[in-house]
């Protein structure tokens, strides 16, 4: 459980920071070819993860990262196209004057992002954080191929051991699944209000 919590926490931090920064850039900065770049970014959403799994594994294997949490966490610090889209849409809904006045006050674009845009983006941050946390919590394929030592296994990987090749063991799967559900359920109840506001604001839907 602690392993999963660590991976999920780092994933959330990386996803929120990187996706919000990239989304802010697409929403507020002017650059030639921005539209093409954004279309290219969105096209990566269409790639199934199974297609990129083996080449990515080869890459991380050559870097010596297999057996560590790095392959599970580091890619999330390079922005997720779907969440970039969410943040871009949110930042575009904010009045342009806010960023213009920050610029007039001497803020660089990065400072305007950190001091003006991000604090206003709490609902969007809540949505992305919850989605990223749940995604990291439920992820199975990546922990399966990258984690080699039992002491580093996540909940989803540990649960899979009770599903044998010829027989499953529901007497173990069900109670363990129930315990694994508790943190996610608790997080949902605690963040429910912020989550609902965020979904309404960003238009994000499951």
């Amino acid at each position, binding site marked *: 459980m602690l392993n999963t919590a660590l991976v999920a926490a780092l994933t959330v931090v990386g996803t929120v920071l990187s996706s919000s920064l990239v989304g802010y850039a697409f929403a507020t900065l002017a650059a030639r070819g921005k539209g093409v770049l954004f279309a290219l970014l969105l096209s990566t959403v269409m790639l199934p993860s199974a297609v990129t799994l083996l080449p990515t594994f080869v890459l991380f294997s050559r870097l010596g990262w297999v057996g560590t949490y790095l392959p599970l966490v580091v890619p999330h610090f390079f922005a997720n196209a779907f969440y970039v889209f969410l943040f871009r849409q949110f930042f575009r809904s904010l009045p342009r004057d806010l960023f213009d006045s920050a610029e007039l006050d001497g803020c660089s674009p990065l400072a305007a992002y950190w001091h003006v845009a991000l604090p206003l983006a709490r609902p969007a941050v809540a949505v992305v954080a919850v989605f990223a946390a749940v995604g990291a919590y439920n992820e199975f394929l990546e922990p399966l191929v990258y984690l*080699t030592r039992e002491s580093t296994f996540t909940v989803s990987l540990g649960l899979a051991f009770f599903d044998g090749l010829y027989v*499953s063991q529901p007497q173990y799967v069900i109670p363990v699944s129930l315990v694994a559900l508790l943190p996610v359920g608790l997080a949902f109840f605690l963040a429910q209000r912020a989550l609902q506001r965020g979904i309404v604001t960003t238009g994000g839907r499951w």
Partner: protein
Amino acid sequence: MPKAGSRRLAPFLVVLLGAHAAGTALAQAAREPVTLTLMVAMTPQELASFRPALAAVDDAHPEFVVELEPVPQGAFTERANARLAAGTLPDVVRVEGLSAQALIRRGALLDLAAAPGFDAAVLDDYFPGVLEPFRWQGATWALPDTASPDVLFYDKAAFDEAGLAYPTDDWTFEDMRQAAIRLTRDANSNSPLDDGFDPDAVVRWGWNGSLTHFWQRHLVQAFGADWCADDECTTFDVTDPDVVAAVRWWADLVQVDHAGLHDPYSGGQTGVPGDPFLAGAAAMGYNGFFAVGQLNDLGAVDYDVAQPLLGVDGQRRTPLSTNAYAIAATSPHPREALALVTALTAPAFLAETWGRPGHAVPARRSAAPSVVDPGRAPAGCPGT
């Protein structure tokens, strides 16, 4: 000593000291244990028996240190393919018989004869047929540790409730079919022979499956047919009239007799994933030795076993669930890897890890009797 003499001696002493230092370093490097990675796909219960025995092997072999990489049984292929793509397959891999050829034919494994120190005499201690899944082009590519055949498991309470005699070692497939029809029950406890039987509301099937997988060749051969068109079974022929008749027999068990399942393992029919007999949703069926431990653990079914059913030619046929240890072709330590494989397939290790705990039947003749419970041994069982 005169000064001129000591000056002539100095270079010699420097060379001597240097050679000594280099030799010491080499000797130390030679004594450093190599790290061997061992990938296994086991259930938690099997791992619980395996770990302490593996630790003892590790302690007894100072030339290597073992890093265990457990993987869920159902996810072995994904992990192995990813590691193979990166050229980082673990030094030693425990492969299942059904998927071994895929690794062997891709050049992923080492021919055991090429491993330094391999003694082919060890192969004489294996039951016939056990080595076949791990042989190709005349070479042996893995050493088996377990080889569990399927036998007929039956629910004694279900037979008592239906007023039927228990299966005997003389049973044929037709005997099984007749009993399976009488053992099948719907939600109102009707059998397919009763008026009002609802085939859409079956809660207990007489037989725990039907013909559902390509590896169930033995269920077709039992009827005098064979859907493999060549010796290596690389080509299927389901147009042969005998094959069609055999397949039709199994289809009728499901569609006409309503005594078998068309989807036994996913839980779509029974509501519980996994084998229907273990789930209490079937009165009898073929299962491997793994089912003994599972059934004893669950304690919900009063069961017994009988020999596999007799085919039309009077022969019994059963699949063998085998596992074996293989050395990766890319392993930089084949000598030490072979030493590990030899230790993991030693009769004492097999008896302690697989036989006595009741997880599986050891593949070696000298270790197989360890699986027998002396208090309940079948008559004529060797070693009892």
